[in-house]
């Protein structure tokens, strides 16, 4: 067996890949070296056998369809405009829902401590020891005013149920708390007066949602119209393409 360098040379020679000078040099070696000639015959035989292999025809056609390669019909430019408007309007609609449900809660959470602070500090102006019971009643007042709201809430819409917790409602509660410190002319107890005034103020604040429903309706209409136009454009493009 010849070394691999010779085998590689013989293989290249068989394929006509050697330069004329290299071929001439190898041919002279082959004529004088029987082992080299035998190796060349082996390589040639292997190559010939492979070339004798019957060519197999494709058993079926491999032509491609548009679906196979994922080709899509060319859509008009307006399609992308409507697609953008649909996406943007949907985003805005989600934002309005989020704003209407989250914002009132945030303002409620911020208003309650303020109301408590106002009730304690505002009434304590010139009082000494005898004022303490009145102050204690004043600090409890916001809790008392919240109670009726809780009982009314189930009868109202979800939006309205959230509304009483707005800043205005808390401010109203604070006002009523301050009023509780001064005695009323008709002899009503301070707590009863607070509750009444709070109930009068609540319906106004309940009607105010951060984003009015008309905006949500308009956005919904825009989304539906854009989606419909997109569908029609796509359908006509596909029918033209076919």
């Amino acid at each position, binding site marked *: 067996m010849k070394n*691999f360098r010779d*085998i*590689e040379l*013989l*293989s*290249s020679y068989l*394929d006509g*890949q050697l330069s004329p000078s290299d071929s001439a040099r190898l041919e002279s070696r082959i004529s004088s070296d029987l082992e080299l000639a*035998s190796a060349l*015959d*082996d*390589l040639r*035989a*292997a*190559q*010939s*056998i*492979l*070339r*004798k*292999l*019957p*060519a*197999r*025809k*494709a*058993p*079926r*056609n*491999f*032509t*491609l369809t*548009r679906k*196979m*390669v994922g*080709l899509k019909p060319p859509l008009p430019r307006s399609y992308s405009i409507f697609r953008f408007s649909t996406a943007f309007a949907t985003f805005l609609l989600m934002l309005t829902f989020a704003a209407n449900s989250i914002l009132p809660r945030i303002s409620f959470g911020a208003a309650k401590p303020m109301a408590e602070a106002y009730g304690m500090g505002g009434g304590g102006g010139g009082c000494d020891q005898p004022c303490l019971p009145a102050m204690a009643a004043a600090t409890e007042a916001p809790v008392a005013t919240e109670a009726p709201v809780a009982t009314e809430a189930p009868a109202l819409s979800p939006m309205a149920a959230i509304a009483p917790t707005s800043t205005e409602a808390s401010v109203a509660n604070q006002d009523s708390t301050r009023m509780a410190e001064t005695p009323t002319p008709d002899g009503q107890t301070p707590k009863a007066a607070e509750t009444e005034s709070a109930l009068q103020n609540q319906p106004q604040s309940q009607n105010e949602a951060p984003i009015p429903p008309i905006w949500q309706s308009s956005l919904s209409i825009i989304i539906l119209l854009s989606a419909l136009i997109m569908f029609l454009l796509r359908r006509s493009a596909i029918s033209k393409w076919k």
Partner: protein
Amino acid sequence: MDETALVNSAQHGDLDSFNTLILHYQDSIFHTALRIIGDEDLAQDATQEAFISAFRNISSFRGGSFKAWLMRMVTNACYDEFRRQKRRPTTPLEPDTADGEEIDSPRWLADKNMTPAEKAEADELEHAIQHCLDALPTDFRTAVVLADIQGMDYSEVATASRVPLGTIKSRLARARLRLRECLRGFEELLPSSFRLEGERNS
């Protein structure tokens, strides 16, 4: 067939032009896949995958031999098929005789122009060659299939295999040497000229 024009059209997304190219090359691409993989069904899958991949990546074709470029696609598809086989090995579903033995040459594959004896002989020779091809490492097999069965020159084989020319020379020499050794075991099946050569050499 104006190959350059068809390739240009296909590069602009014309599927009909590409299908014309497929019809022209599908036999040689399938034959290559069959010799590299050694299984007809898997070779069909690899051929289809190669053409799909070729259409999707035709923009990367920058001229030169389109056949060599297609061969690169089918070679990659065959390698992918090997990788899939390694992950999920399967048992071939060969037709059985009444005794439960496998039939090597099912009736529906028979060529009606040959006598049964000729057919059996040709099948045996083909099986012997395929057996020896299958025994080669994949890279060697690819090189020898492209060069000796498809008749591609070294530069085309290098393009299709994405390896340097020197590597192709080396792989071809080794592959031919191993094939010759393997085929010695099937001397009785080889045509008489090869048998005589073998006798003379020994």
